[in-house]
């Protein structure tokens, strides 16, 4: 009896097992049925399952690379380089490649809203665009001299429109500012070219064909002006030149990615670049049998060696290398300019190119058309002063995050309190937007029309076009349209119907300007413009600078003060996070920093011997104090930095900007001075800081194995 039951139980168990297996493995597709809604009108060019590409312009930095956005079923999938575009030739950097994480960022501002500066007494509330236009209109009716526009480096078409608007209103012209431009030293370059060549212009260095390149400060492989252009040129300089493999020598206190790729990295004392450039120039002139220009006599080789900490023999060797090279090129930017001697450095290095006669030559220096140039920091501090004095009633902010990007020492935060009405057009809830009265979000870059016309990386006259690649996700509106509508509402209408009309009118002069396509009228031109992603000439060609008028002196030189005991030169630099606007792209956060492989946080680079001297270990949290403030960061013992220098990357330390950016690392702008160089660019270099261990440790998320790379456990 019991045996039978056991058997039957066994059978039952088997059946149960089989049934359970059937359920768990899922025999049929029931769970997979999903509803699909076909287009009501199937667009001819759009096919489900097939990608559609739109040409546009990357707005992650002001370089203006051409992009092709791959879309499918109305979604932007991947971003690729536009192969025809003169700036990037189909190539793209990490920032551009991850731009769709900005478009689809869950933390975007989803509609116009009253922000109320984050005060509990005036809680945020949503508005309609009609109300928004009304608010902007009444703001524009304020006394014109009390209206201020602070714009970012992109997009150019908005800057053009605001320029026209302020002109029509009689208001002061808009200011353009961005930490990227400031750290690039753009204003200094413009001032130097104005002084030497009479034309303020950003120089274009033909790196690809240069054979010996001296680079002062410019981290052109990662951040400076147009990194994709220069990285492509770098590759061609190394292996694309049939004559010889180009040689790169970089003067930098801290090895940037560019210096890391150089054949020789010269760890120059911060602030002594001008001395070295002048001394090298004098020596090069001698070696080339030229009369040494007066300006280059200011510094002798020995003095330069003493000030910069580079052995004189090495300087001599570099001078010989440069003077005897077939196609020498000297390049300047970044940390060589953002310092008290920056303007002298810029002039000296540009003049050095004139000495070796490479202006307008292959492998030499050209000038790009400089329009809509960024404002110097001095202009911004002037604005801050007026804000502080209560002379500004309305401040419009677009494309820039001054609370994050400006040195805190400038006092922008306090000055903002004195402005009665602040209107932000930010698509993201960044620091400044949250401190505004209103946020009227612009479309994100991939949803907008526009153009970029100052392309520092183009080897030819070029305009780069933007177009929406997806339907706007949220209730956002193009700022140009908002301003046009507001101007119309107050009876100061500009002669443009809307944003597209404005752009079309602005590009009218290009119709027959010798581009690689022409069109009889604007609509045909417009379709080509959108199809190709812009307009440019078929052949390369930029104006050569005229031979310079060398003044007797490039300016006064202040030798860098040697840091006192326990003080270190403080450097900040930009990596792939750029000016910090990339910090809310999770994949940019996840991307290892090229030199340190650190992700998701801020670190402070300290030379290993210095760290040992201070008793600091990797990942120790230190407090970095300057006269302007203090921040905390984890130590990264960086073997390629001067022992008297420490460096902090720019871009982290957000207190707003969404879930991936907030509360991560520190913002070096908090401890930078508001000082400027004679050209008006910030003079960050030369700031000294003290280090104070906090006793805490915060391990950095590095990709490298410390054990494997540094032999430490």
């Amino acid at each position, binding site marked *: 009896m*019991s045996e039978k039951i*056991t058997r039957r139980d066994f059978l039952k168990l088997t059946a149960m097992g089989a049934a359970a297996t059937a359920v768990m493995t899922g025999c049929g597709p029931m769970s997979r049925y999903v509803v699909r809604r076909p287009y009501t009108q199937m667009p001819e060019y759009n096919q489900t399952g097939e990608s559609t590409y739109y040409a546009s312009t990357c707005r992650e930095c002001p370089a203006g690379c051409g992009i092709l956005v791959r879309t499918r079923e109305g979604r932007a999938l991947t971003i690729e380089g536009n192969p025809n575009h003169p700036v990037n030739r189909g190539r793209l950097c990490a920032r551009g490649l991850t731009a769709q994480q900005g478009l689809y960022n869950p933390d975007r501002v989803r509609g116009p809203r009253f922000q109320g500066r984050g005060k509990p007494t005036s809680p945020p509330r949503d508005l309609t665009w009609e109300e928004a236009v009304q608010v902007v209109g009444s703001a524009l009716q304020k006394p014109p001299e009390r209206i201020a526009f602070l714009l970012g480096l992109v997009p150019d078409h908005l800057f053009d429109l605001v320029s026209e608007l302020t002109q029509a209103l009689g208001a002061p012209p808009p200011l353009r500012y961005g930490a990227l431009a400031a750290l690039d030293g753009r204003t200094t370059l413009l001032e130097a070219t104005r002084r030497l060549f009479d034309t303020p212009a950003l120089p274009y260095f033909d790196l690809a064909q240069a054979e010996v390149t001296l680079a002062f400060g410019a981290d052109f492989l990662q951040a400076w002006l147009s990194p994709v252009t220069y990285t492509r040129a770098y590759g061609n300089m190394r292996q694309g030149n049939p004559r010889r493999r180009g040689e790169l020598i970089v003067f930098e206190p801290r090895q940037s990615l560019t210096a890391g790729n150089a054949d020789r990295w010269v760890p120059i004392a911060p602030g002594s670049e001008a001395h070295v450039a002048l001394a090298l120039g004098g020596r090069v002139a001698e070696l080339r049998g030229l009369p040494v220009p007066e300006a280059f006599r200011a510094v002798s080789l020995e003095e330069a060696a003493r000030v910069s900490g580079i052995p004189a023999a090495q300087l001599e060797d570099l001078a010989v290398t440069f003077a005897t090279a077939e196609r020498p090129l000297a390049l300047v930017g970044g940390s060589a300019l953002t310092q008290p001697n920056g303007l002298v450095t810029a002039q000296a290095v540009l003049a050095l190119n004139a000495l070796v006669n490479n202006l307008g030559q292959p492998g030499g220096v050209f000038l790009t058309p400089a329009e809509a140039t960024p404002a110097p920091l001095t202009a911004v501090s002037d604005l801050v002063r007026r804000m502080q004095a209560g002379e500004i009633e309305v401040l419009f902010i677009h494309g820039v995050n001054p609370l994050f990007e400006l040195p805190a020492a400038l006092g922008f935060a306090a000055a903002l309190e004195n402005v009665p009405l602040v209107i932000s057009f930010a698509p993201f809830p960044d620091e400044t937007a949250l401190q505004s009265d209103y946020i009227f979000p612009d479309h994100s870059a991939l949803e907008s029309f526009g153009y970029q016309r100052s392309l520092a990386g183009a080897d030819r006259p070029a305009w780069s076009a933007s177009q929406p690649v997806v339907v706007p996700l949220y209730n956002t509106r193009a700022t140009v349209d908002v301003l046009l509508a507001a101007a119309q509402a107050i009876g100061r209408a500009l002669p443009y119907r809307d944003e597209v009309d404005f752009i079309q009118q602005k590009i009218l002069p290009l119709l027959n300007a010798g581009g690689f396509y022409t069109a009889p009228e604007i609509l045909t031109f417009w379709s080509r413009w959108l199809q190709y992603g812009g307009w440019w000439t078929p052949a390369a060609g930029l104006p050569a600078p005229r031979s310079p008028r060398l003044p007797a002196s490039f300016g006064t030189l202040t030798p860098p003060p040697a840091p006192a005991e326990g003080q270190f030169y403080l450097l900040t630099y930009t990596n792939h996070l750029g000016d910090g606007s990339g910090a809310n792209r999770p994949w940019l956060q996840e991307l290892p920093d090229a030199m340190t492989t650190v992700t998701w946080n801020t670190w402070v680079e300290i030379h290993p011997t210095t760290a040992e001297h201070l008793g600091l270990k990797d990942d120790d949290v230190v407090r970095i104090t300057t006269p302007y403030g203090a921040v905390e960061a984890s130590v990264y013992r960086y073997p390629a930095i001067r022992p008297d220098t420490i460096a902090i990357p720019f871009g982290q330390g957000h207190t707003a900007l969404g879930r991936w950016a907030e509360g991560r690392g520190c913002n070096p702008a908090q401890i930078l001075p508001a000082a400027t160089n004679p050209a008006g660019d910030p003079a960050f270099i030369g700031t000294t800081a003290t280090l104070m261990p906090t006793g805490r440790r915060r391990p950095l998320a590095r990709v*490298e*194995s410390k054990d*494997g*790379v540094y032999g430490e*456990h």
Partner: protein
Amino acid sequence: MAVESKPLETVLPAAHVEEDPREHLMFDPRPREEMNRMIMEAMTTTSRRYWAWVIGLALVVLICLFGAWGNMILTGMGLAGIRRPVFWGLFIVTFVFWIGISHAGTFVSAILRVFKAEFRRPFTRASELMTTFGLAAGALFPLIHLGRVWVFYWMIPYPNARWLWPNFRSPLVWDFLAITTYLLSSTIYLYLPLVPDLAMARDRTTGWRHTLYRLLALGWRGTEAEWHRLRRAITIFAFAIIPVMFSVHTIVSWDFAVGVVAGWHSTIFGPYFIIGAILSGVAAVVSILFVLRSTMQHMDYFIRKEHFDALGKLLLVFSMAWAYFFFNDYLLTWYGGEEAARRILTLHATGPAAWVWYLMLICNVLIPWLTLWNRTIRRTPWAMFIITLLINVGMYAERYTIIPLTLGHQRMPFDWGVYTPRPTEISIVIGTFALFLLLYLLASRLIPLVPVWEVQEGQMAHTLRRVGKAEVPSVTELE
């Protein structure tokens, strides 16, 4: 049946001469019925403490093993501490450990049986149980460590709608097959000698136990023909299971040895693993015997100092053999001259986790060599318990050295990584230990832990004969 009488010296070492042979189980016979009663008592007596242990262990199994595992299945393997490049961690370490433990049963009951080592008789069953339960615990790990355990059946060769078969080139498939074979054969090998004892139990119980034993005893009556067949079957299995046992751990070692991983890619790994397994298995037998002896009724009759003594000698031999293979591993690597493998072995001794390596050597070599030569220590059960526990700690450390510590420092220093076990995997590992103990506890009250008929058979064969003035132990060849 040949009856031979041996001189005393060859049966017992010289040191034993003064000892009374009657201290040995084989020369201390008791009446069959009394012995049966003792076994039945040991099997049916449970205390409050016993049930407390059972419930406690069952809870541990439920929470630490199945709870943590279920949570890991639902959340992801990330709950374990494994990372790139250390993709195998505690799970595989413990897997190898359990497979190693499981070698003891087969070793004791098959090899010692084949070699007619008489001291094996009272504890063959206890060690065979270890084999089966060790395998049961160990065989969980290939499932636990799968990223997608819900499709584990793809590793089973069966015709299917996908037209796909497992990859028979993969050592993991060999492993799967070998472990299944071993589990099956060791279970049968556990069961066969159990039949007469089950029949004994059947005749002395009522109720559900009676029903159970009646079913399991397969109608055993103890006729001459049955005994004959049983002996034949056991003999065949004893010989057949030995190669299976060797193959299983060789194949487990191939999981590593066929890889290109520096430090794994070694031909010595097969025998090295087998020796290690036997060392850890025999040590575990000693530990278990101590526990049985001190917790179960009448076990001090069956398990005596002489058994600890004999197993201690075995352990010493295997510890030396293990050390020899350990040395060989270095020798081969040095001779092979591969930079990466050399660096691995150096890092084991100098790296951040070098203490594991030293722990391994101290427990596996230093401690046995310093203690087990001593007869007094070998005959002190609690000392043996501690020593054998330490040997198993050492063997665990050996597997830990071979798996995560080797994987972490491969050929590309940029990607080196240090592995830290995390609560989930530690909990699962503890859970399998609890599972093993729980199964053992339950089995100890369900089946006779001592093969009564084997002991009785041995006692019948062993007699003291008076030769002249001396009493001389003698053994009758049974088969």
